[in-house]
């Protein structure tokens, strides 16, 4: 029986997740768990753990997390990155896991509010500009009380070009392509600190 050679092992399993190559040092993870210790989300929702997610990504078991609700809980506060002795930029992984989940149709209910914000930002050149005239009036009133222009000084050119960048990079099409028809329910649910896979109906 010939011995297993190193090349027979599957390398770079995590490159499936780290598509944009933003966490190239993931394999240095020590599994020390400091990330989970400082994570404010893990503190409240014990089924979420950056350490376990990294472990699963490295072992090619990322799918159960892509289908999960947990990846949508991350606050992106980067406490894990600040604490990590190996400087693993974990938030960059979560960001990319969310893209993959969206593409597979998971967690879309957490995506749609932001799709709406993004489509509006594309028109305004500003994020979070309210759509309703009443809310805009209130902002104008506060700004004028301070002695500022009624609306943030943003030029038509800036607005047009911001929109053009959304279109040119294919992001407008990407956002439009994700619709409610693609939606699949997130499969792992938080239950008293455990991830339980839904088995059949009514569970």
């Amino acid at each position, binding site marked *: 029986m010939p011995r297993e050679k190193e090349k027979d092992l599957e390398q770079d399993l995590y490159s499936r997740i780290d598509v944009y190559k933003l966490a190239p040092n993931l394999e240095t993870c020590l599994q020390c768990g400091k990330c989970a210790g400082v994570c404010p989300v893990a503190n409240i929702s014990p089924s979420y753990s950056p350490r376990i997610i990294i472990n699963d990504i490295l072992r090619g078991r990322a799918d159960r997390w892509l289908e999960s609700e947990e990846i949508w*809980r991350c*606050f992106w506060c980067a406490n894990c990155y600040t*604490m990590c002795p190996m400087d693993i930029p974990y938030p960059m992984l979560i960001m990319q896991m969310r893209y993959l989940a969206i593409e597979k149709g998971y967690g879309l209910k957490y995506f749609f509010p932001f799709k709406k914000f*993004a489509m509006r930002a594309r028109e305004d050149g500003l994020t*979070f500009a309210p759509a309703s005239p009443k809310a805009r009036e209130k902002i104008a009133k506060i700004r004028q*009380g301070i002695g*500022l222009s009624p609306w943030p000084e943003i030029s038509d050119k800036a607005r047009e070009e911001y929109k053009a960048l959304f279109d040119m990079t294919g992001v407008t099409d990407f956002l439009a392509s994700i619709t409610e028809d693609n939606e699949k329910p997130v499969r792992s649910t938080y239950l008293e600190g455990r991830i339980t896979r839904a088995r059949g109906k009514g569970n």
Partner: protein
Amino acid sequence: MQEARVIRPEERIRDIPERVFLFRSCTGSIEYPGTESAIRETLKMLGVDAVMDPDQTCCSGYLLTCSAHKPEVSLAVTARNLAIVEKKGLDTYTFCNGCFGYISELSHILLHNQAYLDMANGVVGKLGYRFEGKTRVFHVQELWYRMKDTIAAMLVRPLNGLRVAAHNGCHYVARQYGILDDGGYPTFHEELFELLGAKPVFYKERQLCCGYAVGRGFTHKEELVQPHLYKKFKSAEQAGVELITTVCPGCNVALDREQPNINKRYGEAFNIPVIDLSQLIALCLGVPIHKLGFAANTTPLNGILERLGIGKETADG
């Protein structure tokens, strides 16, 4: 961890600039316009010329990049905005931790991945821009700390021992390398409070995230954000905090606007005003109160202005 993470303010900002590019923040100019106004007034008093440009757009933000759109557009928007600043030959000063973290991170990614830089410059090139990485990105809090002695010398409204607590904001401290203080437990805000005559308060959950949390307030508000913020406010209340300062309008939204909801849900009576550090500095330097835009706050200032000897009539005018 090969290099030193923390650097001295004199290393970060060698010479105090005469002119800076002030990067407009969406949340700052829409939710709390007083922040922008306070910074412009303070810079004017410190003799620093603030240049803004209507052609600058939103930084495009972690909020959307982490939940909605892919980073291609973010890289292109960053390249375009910074190309505008580069043309003016200025450094970029942001006043939102989100803008700071996002622009500095993305410009780092652009400058260290030729393929991404080519992609971004290819796209913005069609609009007549080119990003070369000549502008450096700062947060105005770094300038305040660099100029702390000048600020202390110009103090006209000392805070008389007001109990002020800091909220540092994740996207500044998470940069880790080349920032002013230890990302794990930064204390330079407290140094500034002392110079302004306040009593800095260290509360237990000082390092907790604001809960704005790239939009978790929209998706997991009841489940995560409110219990999380409850812990923060509880510990601040127990430590006797009278005022919290932030350096990010996003943090300000979360901490200020969410307080009444938390009170309702948990039967508490938290009433801790939250303002921007720049608003506090501008206040102490004697900038007229109406220019600080406290009218935008949900949690009122609790008579702090009166305690500092600023009467109602001045507050209105």
